[in-house]
């Protein structure tokens, strides 16, 4: 998902067409490996996520980009998620 500027190498997690600094077109990258940093159990329901419990994990890819990921099962901190599988 991260969008990288081929000029200044800055990364965005939001889909943007061009780099605000270099005006170069951003390229979408696909993370290959995601490491689980934390996994938190959520038991507070909201309208968009009414079914609890669920889990929110902080993930880090091989380039250091950071993500949250929702899952029904707990992920183990330290575990590597292979996005190719």
């Amino acid at each position, binding site marked *: 998902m991260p969008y990288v500027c081929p000029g200044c190498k800055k990364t965005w997690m939001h889909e943007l067409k061009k780099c605000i600094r270099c005006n170069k077109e951003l390229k979408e990258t696909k993370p290959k490996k995601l490491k689980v940093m934390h996994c938190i159990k959520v038991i507070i329901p909201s309208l*968009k996520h009414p079914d609890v419990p669920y889990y929110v994990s902080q993930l880090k890819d091989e380039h250091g980009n950071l993500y949250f990921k929702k899952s029904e099962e707990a992920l183990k901190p330290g575990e590597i998620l292979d996005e190719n599988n």
Partner: protein
Amino acid sequence: MYISGIGRTKFGKLDMTLHEMMVESVQKALDDSKTDLKNIDAIFVSNNLSGLNQGQLHLNSLLATILKLDIPIIRVESTCASGGVTFYNSLFSLSKFDNILVLGVEKMSALSSKELSTNIGTTSDKKLDQKQGFIFPAGAAMIIERYEKKFGNVMDELALISLKNHNNGNLNKNAHFFGKEVNLEKIKNSKKLVGKLRLYDCSPVSDGSVSIVVSKNKKDKRSVKIKSCEMSTGPISLSLNPGTSMPAVKKAAKRALDAADMKITDIDVIEIHDGYTIVELITMEDLGLCKPGKAPGMIRKGKTKLKGAIPVNTDGGLKANGHPIGATGLAQIYELVTQIRGEAGKRQVKAKTGLAHNIGGMVGSCVVTVLEGN
């Protein structure tokens, strides 16, 4: 720039509309300033959720209608930092005006917890956070986990922060938790919401309003000087800040202390935005009250209690005073003014200077304000 008047409602589950709360705090601030609405040149309104919670936006025009005014009225939104950001914005207008009024208001209690949780969630990133089920309590739980991994267990100290703020709130008749006995056992045994985060580590759902009259010139000896008010912004998603420190807080604090030509050790009383107890703990470190990892020791020694070296959240903080989002940043200013004037009654500390730390998100916006008395 001087604060010449302060007014507030009680915080809590109030049987009052947005309109009624605004009128009450405005009237009290005008009375406190010994002035009249006709002397106010402009009003700045802070609110976060009225569009979602009450289906009512355009609060500036609503206020003009209620108060029968045609002066400039401006509404500002910056989630939990709405009050601080509105205050920050309002000060620029004193190059044009002599007296302005800054008002914060929020009505939160009339909704179901599911609705409220959803509405509050809109202040996080839609794609990175909301879609992935991230909610703010999960963010606080993640910070607790990281902090413990780095510096060791901290849940006992977080309970002591909660207890301190509840004890202070019990000396503040306007506080959400005033008159409610909360002890360590109750805090430690409270329901776990997310990860290790307990119910009593979180601020409550409150209604309330606060108004502040700000004047270009000093009015009388009760006027409190605004030494500085500075702001910093940061990423909207906590996923982009995986540390145990908030860069936006450090920057805003440095800017505010530099602008005031002061050090943190020159400050006598502090209001920290303790939406969660872990935030009070890490903010003590971000403000420079101690080195990283040393805040738990300060808490154990009682250094931030009323009689401690640097009292924090003398009004009970968000934890016990309450957290009506749009009014919170101004409630902090209200408390500092009360302390600096020496009008805080049983919770009075010795204070000539005060600092308020108001944040939105974790941390997407931060305002730090420094006040000084005569």
